[in-house]
């Protein structure tokens, strides 16, 4: 396992997909992609294709899940059977259940849950095509969907990953870099409040490398945040312009 035949970065510092070490994949975000949900968003980050839908706040069923002092946030991260090379069983796997929890906990601090007690919000994240760092792209999309549903929030949440391949700290890992690489650090951030809502690390980094990776991921978050904001405004600006014609 330790011996790799393929180099992930060439001598010029260019990665397998032609990116520089501190470069993001191309990102496309659309808000309001689904009309049946109360709020929705679609994100493409490199080869990742992810849909997020939000329902609520509404009366919670089963009722015993309702909390007397705040809204309950439920989150489901799910990968479509065709999202990966080898067909994935549609039943929720251990990893998906864990990611559902991770995403929920990354979004929770951003929402004013205490405003509407005894109700619930459902967040559904559907990965249509996966190519590494899906949890980050999912958080970015889910946060937009929550804003699109008109749920009061402290801030949008934006997420980005950093990691280490071939002893170099890099930004925004894709699938091969995640699998063949040495470490992965996903970070979620509320940019205006400058608060981190998710920080994980998988692999081994020295404390200097970790700090470097964290800062790189935070920079990436700021770049994605600009796009995220633009996408949210775009939906409402077009609605506004259409009406002015």
């Amino acid at each position, binding site marked *: 396992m330790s011996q790799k035949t393929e180099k992930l970065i060439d001598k010029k510092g260019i990665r397998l997909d032609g990116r520089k070490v501190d470069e993001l994949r191309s990102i496309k975000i659309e808000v309001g992609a689904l009309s049946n949900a*109360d*709020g929705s968003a679609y994100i493409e980050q490199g080869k990742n294709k992810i849909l997020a839908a939000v329902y*609520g*706040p*509404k*009366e919670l069923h089963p009722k015993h899940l309702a909390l*007397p002092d705040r809204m309950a946030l439920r989150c489901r991260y799910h990968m479509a059977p065709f999202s990966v090379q080898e067909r994935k069983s549609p039943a929720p796997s251990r990893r998906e259940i864990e990611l559902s929890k991770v995403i929920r906990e990354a979004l929770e601090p*951003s929402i*004013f849950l205490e405003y*509407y*007690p*005894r*109700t619930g919000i459902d967040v559904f994240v559907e990965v249509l095509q996966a190519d590494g760092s899906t949890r980050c792209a999912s958080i970015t999309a889910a946060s937009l969907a929550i*804003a*699109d*549903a*008109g749920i*009061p*929030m*402290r*801030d*949008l949440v934006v997420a980005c990953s950093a990691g280490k391949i071939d002893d170099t700290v890099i930004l925004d890992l894709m699938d091969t870099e995640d699998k063949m690489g040495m470490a992965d650090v996903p970070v979620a951030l*509320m*940019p*205006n*409040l400058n608060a981190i809502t998710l920080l994980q690390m998988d692999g081994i980094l020295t404390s200097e490398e970790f700090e470097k990776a964290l800062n790189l991921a935070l920079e990436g978050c700021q770049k994605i945040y600009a796009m995220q*904001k633009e996408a*949210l*405004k775009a939906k*409402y*600006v077009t*609605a*506004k312009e*259409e*009406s*002015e014609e």
Partner: protein
Amino acid sequence: MPTSFERRQLVTPGDLIAEGEYIAGENTYAEDNKIYASRIGMVEYENKKVNVVALKAFYIPRVGDMVIGTIVEVGFNGWTVNINAPYEALLRASDVLSRSFKPQKDELSQVLDIGDLVVAKIFAYDRAHNPQLAVDEPGLGKITRGQILKITPTKIPRVIGRKGSMISMIKQETDCQIILGLNGVVLVTGKNFEDEALAIMAINKVEEESHTSGLTDRITKMLKEEKAKREEIKNESEN
């Protein structure tokens, strides 16, 4: 005491709108003397108060609001009503039937059944309890005729207009009775189907173009033209 946005500028949740001695109004929150937006919307300043007019929101019940709801459940001593809010509302049988109510005798589904629409007022609501409805005023109660349409609850004030200018104009022009439920449900009752259709068209147009100015005049014009057109068609078919 700087403000970072101009009036009517679009903000997204988390945008820092103002710093210093401002008061957080609708759809905003204050933290460390800073005011942030909590919903997507347009900034409005009202003296020291900072408001965000939300472009997307849902209805939150308030005591005294008139709403239009659908019966979703008939219980032992009352009904559960869907009022398009995060909470389901309760309507007690003893508040509907003027006489004393006996569960053994009265069949509640004969009074109001699932799917029936009611105009009601919210008379009690707090964080710990679901809203309670009352139908004890003239004009409230079961809806028997007319048409229903749903609009975004945040746009109801625009449909009412300044001092009711928009709604009274639409009522006058179309000769319809219009009841605006603050939960975004609107009841239109007219003498005939065409009048109602005309009123619905006007309300939908107001909702779509709610950001624009001079809307009342344009809606008046549209209604007059539309009426003239219909008159013409009518005359032609008679001749």
